[in-house]
């Protein structure tokens, strides 16, 4: 590798550090005293026919301005609340509201990745610890570079020696007859790690939703919002993520995302049908040795009474042993009892089974924290 290339690569890692530091300042996590200098400028871009506004936060350090800094709001006599620029003029009250549409621009502030990061910070979510060593998508730390600082136990003897030798020769302190090399602090080099990414990783999320007659639009909205955040978070944790969607009333079927959120069915509720289908799909397509499997089930908890035992048995025997996580979120039921969560809690205690009540939008936050707070 040539010198220039080496320099180039060093520069590359450096800009990442500078950039994340800048992002942290903008998000107000560090150096809070700089926040007051943040200005939000924007660039206008185009996406197809639409205008998009691309916000570009900038931090303007205070500086002297040349020339005459004239006037401006906030200088001179007067009380707070006085109109700027003389007396208020009574308007003439004519004219109508405009009839031309304004130019609307879509903001593209955040990438989903950034969103996930903020979510993780906000909810203090632990990073997911994937199961099964060989399937992990992880960052591996390997000691393969050299750094200027580090613990003495990792000192790289050869490099340190060469550095010291070089310095002593340069300073004329080296005596070939008495070749004593004494390293000083600046000479010392240490072994250091580099993070490498192991590319392959497999994760699949199953979303199951009760679409029986008792699930209204409001309930679906809750499910959709919760599912969106869960999806965003898990996507930030796995490089490759598959999503599968299952809806059920008295019978279950696998559907695509569109249908999942849009369908409204009627009919009774047999949750076991969905669990059965999920277990079958897992067995067929996602062998648990190679996949990190997440299942989220949303329902209003109004299950056919005689079906409960059936559900628990499938969970205990076919699902839980294979899954990273099974989450049950219960939205508020308009009609029914909403008993399923309580019964489920009573029937099964397992580390990878989590349940939460989502009665209103405000509780989505807590539910996500319960579901993802364990780092499974």
């Amino acid at each position: 590798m040539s010198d220039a290339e080496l320099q180039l690569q060093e520069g590359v890692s450096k800009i990442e550090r500078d950039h994340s530091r800048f992002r942290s300042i903008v998000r107000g996590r560090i150096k809070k005293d700089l926040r007051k200098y943040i200005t939000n400028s924007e660039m206008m871009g185009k996406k197809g026919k639409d205008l998009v506004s691309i916000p570009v936060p900038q931090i303007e350090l205070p500086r002297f301005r040349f020339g005459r800094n004239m006037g401006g709001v906030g200088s001179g006599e007067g009380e707070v609340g006085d109109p700027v620029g003389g007396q208020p003029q009574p308007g003439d009250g004519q004219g109508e509201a405009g009839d031309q549409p304004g130019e609307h621009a879509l903001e593209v502030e955040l990438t989903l990745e950034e969103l996930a990061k903020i979510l993780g910070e906000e909810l203090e979510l632990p990073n997911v610890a994937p199961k099964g060593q060989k399937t992990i998508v992880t960052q591996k730390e390997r000691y393969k570079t050299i750094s200027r600082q580090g613990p003495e136990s990792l000192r790289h003897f050869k490099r340190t020696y060469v550095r010291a030798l070089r310095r002593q020769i340069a300073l004329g302190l080296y005596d070939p007859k008495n070749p004593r090399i004494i390293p000083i602090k600046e000479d010392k080099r240490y072994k250091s790690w580099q993070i490498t990414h192991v590319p392959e990783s497999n994760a699949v999320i199953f979303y199951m939703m009760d679409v029986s007659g008792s699930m209204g639009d409001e309930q679906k909205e809750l499910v959709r919002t919760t599912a969106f955040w869960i999806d965003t978070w898990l996507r930030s944790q796995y490089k490759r993520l598959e999503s599968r969607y299952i809806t059920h009333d008295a019978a279950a079927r696998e559907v695509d995302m569109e249908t999942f959120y849009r369908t409204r069915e009627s009919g009774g509720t047999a949750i076991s049908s969905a669990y059965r289908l999920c277990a079958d799909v897992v067995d067929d397509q996602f062998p648990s040795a190679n996949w990190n499997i997440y299942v989220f089930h949303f329902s209003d908890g109004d299950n056919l009474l005689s079906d409960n035992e059936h559900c628990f048995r499938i969970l205990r025997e076919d699902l839980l042993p294979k899954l990273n996580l099974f989450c049950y979120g219960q939205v508020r039921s308009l009609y029914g009892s909403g008993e399923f969560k309580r019964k489920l809690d009573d029937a099964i205690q397992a580390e990878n089974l989590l349940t939460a009540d989502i009665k209103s939008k405000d509780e989505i936050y807590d539910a996500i924290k319960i579901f993802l707070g364990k780092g499974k």
Partner: protein
Amino acid sequence: MNIPHELDDLKEEIKAHAIDCGLDFFDVVFELCTYDQINQIASLGGFPTRYPHWRFGMDYEKIGKSYTWGLSKIYEMVINNDPCYAYLMTSNPLVDQKLVMAHVYAHSDFFKNNAFFSHTSRKAIDEMANHGARVRAHAERFGHENVEDFLDCCLSIENLIDIHSMGIRRRGEARAKTRFLEQSEEEPLEVRRIKAKDYMDRFINPQEFIAAKRKELEDARAKQKRFPPEPERDVLLFLLEYAPWSPGSARSWPSSARRPTTSRRSG
């Protein structure tokens, strides 16, 4: 990183044309970069290595977003260095590469011969890297936060430099060395008294009169010793020389902020 043969051949050809045109330039090293590498180098002011600071990250975000959304593209960047370093973007079509290379030779000629630029340092890349290493060493020693806060302060007066200092010497070297604080060693002020016998002294040299005279003299001296005697243009340099730096011998820092150079073109 080497450029592919076809570009290397072009380089030789273009160089010959440039010489034919009577250009006199530093040798040029071309590097082929991806857009992201170009953006990164551009946000570091054109240099591969610099001191760590968030503002480079800020520029990176701006340049990156603007490129991603197709608002601007940096297709040429050249550093005033000997040899000149110039970056070519991989995604440029061959015609663009030719244009850029030819353009860069003209830049190099300008860097070398322009009255202003001819005084600038030609080892900017190394200097920048050294500044970077020094700042990092200081950061290790005094804490990253402290060093960054200090750099923030330096950067907020970074425009108060004498941009003509390369060509114009505004003051003698000798004066720069005299220290402000040394003047306290001067002899004390003495008001001239009229000679009188001890018991008459109070009347012949009344105390109020002496005090008033002394004040007059002090004012005059203060005026004489205005500091600095002439207004200084290069505020950063002035501070560099006279400010009492707190964390040890950190005097060399602000020079990291006093640096022009590079040309960058984007469209």
